[in-house]
C-alpha cells in the first residue's frame, strides 16, 4: 500500500474519513427539516471567514468556523423573526458572504486566486498537520451533538410544534443544529471545498433514504456512504490525478442513482414477504345496480 506511506495521503484519507462521517450526520437533520440547501448558504458565508483569516494572517479554518457559526446563527434568527421576505434576507447573507470573501482575499498579501480556489473547491492533499488537529476537534463536536442528541433533534426536525409542546428547549436545539452545520462546513471545507460542502451533507442522506425504512438506518447508512465515497474519491484522485472534491461528489451522485434504481424492486420484495394478504384476491361480489324505488320510466 504505497499511498498509505505518504504522510500527505495519510492526512488526506483521515480528513476524508472525518468529512464522510460528519457531513451526512448533520445533513440528515437539515434534509428532515427541508433545509437541504442550508449547508450551501453557510458555505458562502464561510468564505468571508477564510478571507478574514488571510487578511489578519490567522488560521483560515478557525476564522471560517467563527464567521460561519455567526452566519448560521443569523440564518436561524431570520427564520424565527423573519416575516414573509426571509428568503431575501438569506440571499443577502449568502451573496454578501461570498463577495466579502473574494474582496478580503484580494486585499490580503498572500491571498492569491490559487488560494481562493483551494477553499472554493477543496484541496485535500494539502491538508496540514495543524489542519488535521483542528478538523479532529471540530468533527468530535459534530459527532457528539448529532449522535448524543439524536432523539431530541429528530423530534425537533420532524414536528417542531409538537416538540415545543413537549417542553423541549426547541430554540436552543435549533441553534445547536445551525452551529453544528456551520462547524461541519469548515470541517469539510478543505476536502470538498465550500461550494461542494452541501453535496456531502445531502446526497448520502438522499441515497440512504431511498432504501431505508427508519431514521436510525438512514443515519447509519448515510454516514457509511459518506465515508465510502470520501475515501474512494480521495484514493481515485491520487491515482487518476483528478480533483478530489469533484470526484467525491460525482461518486456520491452515482451511488444515489444506484440506490434509487434499487428502491423499486426492493419495495416489491418487502411487500411480497410481509403481506401474505396481498395474495388474496377480491372475493366480495359486487351487487347489481339497484332499480330506483319509484321505478319511473319515460316512455
Amino acid at each position, binding site marked *: 500500500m504505497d499511498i498509505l506511506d505518504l504522510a500527505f495521503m495519510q492526512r488526506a484519507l483521515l480528513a476524508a474519513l472525518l468529512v464522510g462521517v460528519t457531513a451526512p450526520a448533520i445533513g*440528515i437533520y437539515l*434534509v*428532515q427539516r*427541508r433545509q*437541504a440547501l442550508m449547508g450551501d448558504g453557510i458555505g458562502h458565508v464561510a468564505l468571508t471567514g477564510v478571507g478574514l483569516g488571510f487578511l489578519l494572517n490567522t488560521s483560515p479554518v478557525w476564522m471560517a468556523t467563527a464567521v460561519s457559526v455567526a452566519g448560521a446563527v443569523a440564518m436561524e434568527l431570520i427564520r424565527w423573526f423573519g416575516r414573509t421576505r426571509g428568503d431575501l434576507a438569506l440571499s443577502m447573507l449568502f451573496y454578501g458572504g461570498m463577495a466579502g470573501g473574494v474582496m478580503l482575499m484580494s486585499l490580503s498579501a498572500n491571498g492569491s486566486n490559487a488560494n481562493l480556489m483551494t477553499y472554493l473547491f477543496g484541496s485535500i492533499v494539502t491538508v496540514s498537520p495543524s489542519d488535521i488537529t483542528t478538523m479532529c476537534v471540530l468533527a468530535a463536536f459534530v459527532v457528539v451533538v448529532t449522535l448524543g*442528541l439524536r*432523539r*431530541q433533534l*429528530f*423530534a425537533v*426536525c*420532524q*414536528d417542531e*410544534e*409538537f*416538540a*415545543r*409542546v*413537549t*417542553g*423541549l*428547549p426547541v430554540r436552543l436545539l435549533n441553534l445547536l443544529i445551525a452551529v453544528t452545520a456551520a462547524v461541519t462546513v469548515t470541517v469539510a471545507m478543505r476536502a470538498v471545498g465550500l461550494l461542494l460542502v452541501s453535496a456531502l451533507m445531502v446526497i448520502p*442522506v438522499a441515497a440512504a*433514504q431511498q432504501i*431505508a*425504512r*427508519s*431514521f*436510525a*438506518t*438512514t443515519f447509519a447508512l448515510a454516514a457509511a456512504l459518506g465515508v465510502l465515497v470520501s475515501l474512494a474519491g480521495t484514493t481515485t484522485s491520487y491515482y487518476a490525478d483528478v480533483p478530489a472534491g469533484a470526484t467525491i461528489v460525482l461518486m456520491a451522485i452515482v451511488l444515489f442513482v444506484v440506490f434509487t434504481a434499487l428502491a423499486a424492486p426492493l419495495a416489491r420484495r418487502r411487500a411480497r414477504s410481509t403481506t401474505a394478504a396481498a395474495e388474496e384476491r377480491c372475493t366480495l361480489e359486487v351487487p347489481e345496480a339497484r332499480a330506483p324505488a319509484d321505478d319511473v320510466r319515460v316512455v
Partner: protein
Amino acid sequence: MERQPTEPVVSLRGGTASLGSRPVLRGVDLTVRRGEVVALLGANGSGKSTAVRAVVGQVPLSAGELELFGTPHRSFKEWARIGYVPQRTTAASGVPATVREVVSAGRLARTKLGWPRRADREAVVRALELVGMADRIKDPVAALSGGQHQRVLIARALAAEPELLIMDEPMAGVDLANQAVLADAVREQVAAGTTVLLVLHELGPLEPLIDRAVVLRDGCVVHDGPPPEAVGQHALPGHDHVHPHAGPAAEPIRTGLLT
C-alpha cells in the same frame, strides 16, 4: 367512578389572539376541569383550532389570562402533563421514520435531554397498544393510511402518560373504522381519569363521551354547555357537513370542506 369536576386544568379568560392583522379570538373564555371531556365546536375559521393552539402556547395571546393546572401559562413547565395531537399535516418529513421512532418523540416530554430507560420504551409500546397499532411498531410511517397515521400521532401524545389530552381535529380525514378505534382509545383514557379537550368538526362517534361542548363563532363563545343535539349541531351556522356514506373500510370522500 364519580367524577368531581372541580379543579380547572385549563383556564382561559378573555383570550384574544390574531393571525397577522386578522383577529381570530375576540375574548374567549374556556375552562376545562379535571376529568372533563370538552369538545370545541364551530365552523371553519371560527377560531377553534387557534384556541387550542393558544392553550398549548403555540399562538401568542394578545390579551387575556391563561392558566394550566393552576399555574400561569408563562411559568408553566410541566409539559409532560399535557399530551398534544396537532392537526394532521399530510406533508410527511423527508427522512423515513418508523412508528416507534415517531411515538418515542412523545416520550421526550418525560426524558427531556436524557437517555430513555426501559420504562420509557415500555411506555411507547403501551401507547401503541392503546390505539391498536403495536403490530405496526417497526413499519415506516409513510406506509400507513391516514387513519393509522392519526392513531400513531395520538399514541405519540399518550406516550408521555399525560393527565390532559388536547387534540386538534383528531377525526378529520379518518375513515369510520379508524374513528371507532380512536373513540375506544379515548374512552379508555377518560375511564382512567384523563381530561380531554378536543377540537371537532362534528361530534361523530365521540359524542357519548363528551361532557360539555363549547361552540365558537367568529372568535367568540356562543354556547357553553351540554353538547348540542344532532339537530342543533346541524343547525350550527356555517356548518358544512359531508356524510361519509362509503363502506367502513373506505376513506370518506374528501371534498376539501372538512379540512
